[in-house]
């Protein structure tokens, strides 16, 4: 079949990102031709500021060199501007006469700087700040001239001013509004930023309007303001805003209104013509930052590839100023209004200003100056519309105040030394991450994980790595939203959609899910298969078959793999109780199998470490104890204190309650591990505050706390309700865990699940709605009624091969 022809007008970040996304989905669908007005390959326009400031060189910012176009069979017409689109003949014509036919056309014409219509704006020495040529002109001017005036104190204007100052010029910034970066900052934040820029030698004239540019020998020599003031200027940079490039589209009679108007599928009014990037008006918004453009590119590529799924529904944007050493962040509705509240921290001497705008119990905007450590976190809270009622008292103090193990040092990426360790698990320091980001052109946290291993293990340094990414590539960084993040690289669907589809379509096998949702890989990967297996068996218990090959080795072998390939065995001790007979058998097994290490675990049981895989069935048989599931995304232990049975303070029989809960939950698989604790009195010796379910005895009954966590991020469990009887403890705890089993995402702990759906929702389903609670509890008991013990259920049949080696 003859290939279709795709013509791309615009060789910038939006257009080429679309092509890259398209090649990933359908590498052979089109013959692709790209027209670009600049004589370069695609480069990272955002990094022009560091180039201007002398921190990076031009070759560092190239994203796609000419070889890339050649390797991918793309015809590139660099330095040729398309002047005409003929929609009837379906062809485009460039300024040098080059003609290209198209079946589908992609417009990514970007925008042009707005040149103030004042006398002298066409003089030599007056430039905009948009592309490599402008940057080179500014660098050249800085070597030959002394005085620069930047008109406009927006993001671009300040970066230009800073760069020119760094190159030794005297720089004055003229701004019509009363404070700088008025589109991104409120006045107090702007004042603070202005003070720190002034400390670097920049001069500001605010609330001033330029009237004319004066000439000397054909070159600009001064700027005259409306109030008559004249400022010497050998170089004038116009940074008073940008305008979408729509002339070409308008000439072709495509509907434009402050941009080329597109639908949610990135199509213009001519369905054969798509448009992405800064030239586009989507639902009334024109985006000037790169993160939304990348989202548009993804959707557009999907439709160009004939997949026909995915809609672009707009983006929330955040801004970061790329002036080295000055941290500014702003996102969302930062100005606030009638129905919002504000939390403000203003430390002028310390150079820190933070304002959080809250609407209802959601964060709606944030402005940070001086310390942007938590920018990515705030942005995520805004995007995900996370309920913040529970966080509110600590919100201003950042994600770090919520407790993060292993990161007591170095929370601020900008001030960290290159040699400072960022990822404590994999020993990756800041310099390594920055180098990888620059060398390999990384844009996402996943790419950084792959290349450096930072944040790929326990994940507690993710926030820090995000900051480093954000400060290295600036606005190109878009924090992942957990809501639409694909489950893994094999699919575009997020966890929620996969769960929902499995239920709605009654899919019963992994193959069926992958087929129905058009997985990109034949058998998925080590990330999606365990998730799918869990979703199937938890959604369709008794109908979907468990697939051992889609389980991590620990769950397949019912033991915990260790660094040397041996395993650890933890037999179950209900509620942490044991008997002389059990201890004797453990001692005998330890001697018989020469177990090198015996350890008492934090979950009140005994771990036998260093057992060879082939010995596992024998060990289990000799122990004669059920599996402790210390290896599973499953019920682990119920920790208990001594309670009223012996303790002189005890108000309730916590050991008996713990044993009853553990027996009820035996064999329960869950999205992630589940730990419980039962304390007999409010002294809480069983540490219920850091468990998924913590039950605390009081004189009149029990308190139930949920969603605590003692691991990477210590989170105190939240009070769910008080109940009167042991039977109610089982019912409420069981119903909560079943809700989590049915709605939690794979590898999402209860703390994150409850953060996602909100404690109010959980209370409504478990406490207020009795029918919902009973139904959940019944479903749990139904699943668990014939849960078998994987150890005493003698290993036989094909499963036995798991533990037997072949010889050659």
């Amino acid at each position, binding site marked *: 079949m003859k290939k279709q022809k795709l013509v791309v007008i615009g060789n910038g970040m939006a257009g080429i990102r679309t092509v890259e996304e398209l090649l990933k989905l359908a590498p052979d669908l089109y013959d692709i031709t790209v027209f670009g007005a600049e004589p370069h390959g695609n480069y990272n326009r955002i990094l022009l500021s560091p180039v201007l400031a002398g921190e990076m060189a031009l070759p560092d910012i190239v994203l796609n060199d000419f070889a890339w176009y050649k390797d991918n069979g793309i015809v590139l017409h660099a330095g040729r501007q398309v002047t005409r689109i003929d929609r009837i003949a379906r062809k485009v014509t460039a300024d040098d006469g080059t003609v290209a036919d198209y079946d589908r056309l992609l417009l990514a014409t970007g925008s042009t700087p707005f040149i103030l219509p004042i006398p002298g704006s066409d003089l030599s020495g007056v430039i905009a700040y948009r592309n490599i040529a402008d940057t080179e002109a500014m660098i050249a001017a800085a070597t030959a001239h002394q005085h620069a005036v930047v008109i406009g104190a927006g993001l671009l204007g300040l970066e230009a001013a800073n760069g020119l100052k760094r190159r030794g010029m005297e720089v004055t910034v003229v701004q019509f509004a009363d404070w700088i970066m008025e589109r991104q900052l409120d006045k107090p934040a702007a004042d603070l930023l202005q003070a720190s820029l002034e400390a670097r030698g920049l001069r500001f004239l605010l609330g001033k309007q330029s009237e004319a540019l004066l000439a000397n020998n054909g070159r600009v020599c001064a700027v005259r303001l409306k109030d008559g003031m004249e400022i010497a200027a050998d170089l004038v940079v116009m940074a008073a805003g940008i305008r979408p490039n729509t002339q070409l589209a308008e000439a072709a009679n495509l509907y434009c209104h402050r941009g080329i108007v597109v639908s949610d599928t990135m199509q213009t009014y001519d369905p054969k013509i798509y448009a992405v990037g800064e030239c586009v008006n989507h639902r009334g918004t024109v985006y000037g930052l790169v993160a939304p453009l990348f989202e548009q590119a993804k959707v557009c590529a999907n439709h160009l590839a004939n997949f026909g799924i995915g809609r672009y529904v707009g983006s929330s944007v955040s801004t970061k100023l790329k002036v080295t050493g000055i941290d500014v962040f702003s996102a969302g509705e930062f100005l606030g209004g009638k129905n919002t509240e504000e939390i403000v921290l203003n430390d002028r001497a310390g150079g820190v200003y933070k304002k959080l705008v809250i609407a209802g119990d959601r964060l709606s905007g944030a402005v940070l100056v001086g310390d942007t450590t938590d920018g990515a976190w705030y942005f995520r809270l805004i995007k995900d519309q996370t309920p913040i009622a529970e966080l509110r008292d600590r919100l201003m103090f950042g994600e770090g105040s919520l407790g993060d193990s292993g990161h007591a040092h170095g929370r601020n990426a900008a001030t960290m030394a290159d040699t400072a360790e960022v990822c404590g698990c994999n020993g990756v320091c800041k310099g390594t991450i920055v180098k990888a980001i620059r060398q*390999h052109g990384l844009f996402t946290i996943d790419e950084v994980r*792959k*290349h450096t291993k930072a944040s*790929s*293990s326990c994940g507690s340094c993710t926030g820090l790595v995000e900051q480093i990414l954000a400060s290295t590539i600036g606005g190109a960084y878009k924090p992942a939203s957990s809501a639409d993040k694909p489950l893994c690289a094999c699919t575009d669907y997020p966890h929620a959609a996969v769960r929902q589809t499995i239920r709605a379509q009654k899919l019963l096998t992994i193959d069926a899910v992958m087929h129905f949702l058009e997985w990109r*890989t*034949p*058998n*998925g*990967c*080590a990330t999606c*298969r*365990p998730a799918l297996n869990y979703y199937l068996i938890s959604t369709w218990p008794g109908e979907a078959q468990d697939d*051992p*090959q*889609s389980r*991590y*080795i620990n769950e397949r*072998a019912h033991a915990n*793999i260790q*660094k040397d*390939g041996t395993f650890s065995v933890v037999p179950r001790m209900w509620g942490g109780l044991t008997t002389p007979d059990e201890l004797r058998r453990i001692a005998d097994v330890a001697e018989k199998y020469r177990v090198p290490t015996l350890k008492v675990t934090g979950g009140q049981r005994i771990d036998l470490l260093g057992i060879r*895989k082939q010995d596992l069935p024998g060990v289990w048989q000799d122990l004669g104890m059920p599996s402790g599931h210390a290896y599973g995304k499953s019920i682990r232990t119920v920790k208990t204190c001594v309670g009223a049975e012996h303790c002189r303070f005890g108000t309730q029989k916590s050991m008996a309650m713990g044993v009853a809960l553990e027996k009820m939950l035996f064999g329960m698989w869950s999205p992630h591990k589940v730990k419980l604790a039962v304390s007999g009195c409010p002294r809480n010796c069983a540490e219920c505050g850091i468990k998924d379910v913590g039950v605390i005895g009081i004189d009149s009954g029990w308190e139930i706390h949920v969603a605590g966590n003692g691991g990477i991020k210590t989170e105190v469990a939240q009070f769910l309700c008080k109940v009167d009887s042991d039977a109610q403890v089982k019912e409420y705890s069981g119903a909560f865990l079943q809700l989590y089993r049915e709605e939690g995402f794979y590898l999402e702990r209860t703390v994150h699940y409850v953060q996602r759906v909100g404690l109010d929702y959980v209370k409504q389903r478990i406490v207020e709605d009795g029918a919902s609670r009973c139904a959940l509890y019944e479903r749990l008991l139904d699943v668990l009624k014939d849960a078998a013990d994987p150890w005493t259920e003698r290993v036989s049949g*094909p499963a036995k*091969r798991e533990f037997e*080696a*072949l*010889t*050659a």
Partner: protein
Amino acid sequence: MNEWKTLCALEDIPRLGSRVVNTANGDIALFRTGDDRVFALDDRCPHKGGPLSQGIVAGERVTCPLHGWLVELASGHAVAPDQGCVKRHEARVDAGKVLIRLA
């Protein structure tokens, strides 16, 4: 050159799974893909020696159970950006039997 040895029936290896083969020169991991091809690699991840036989098999790759490195079954090479290589052995299926020739 070593000779081909018959190890087991194809059905003795779970689909998308593996078996360990003990040899005089250490353990070998014997894999079966979703489309019933077999591959043999030394049972040592090039990263930190993890037992590849215990990993999850998908497509023509296995994920090491210790730190998640991906290793190509056909070549023994780690998937970029990781770098490393593990020794491979020839393996094939003949009339439902799995044969191996040690390298």
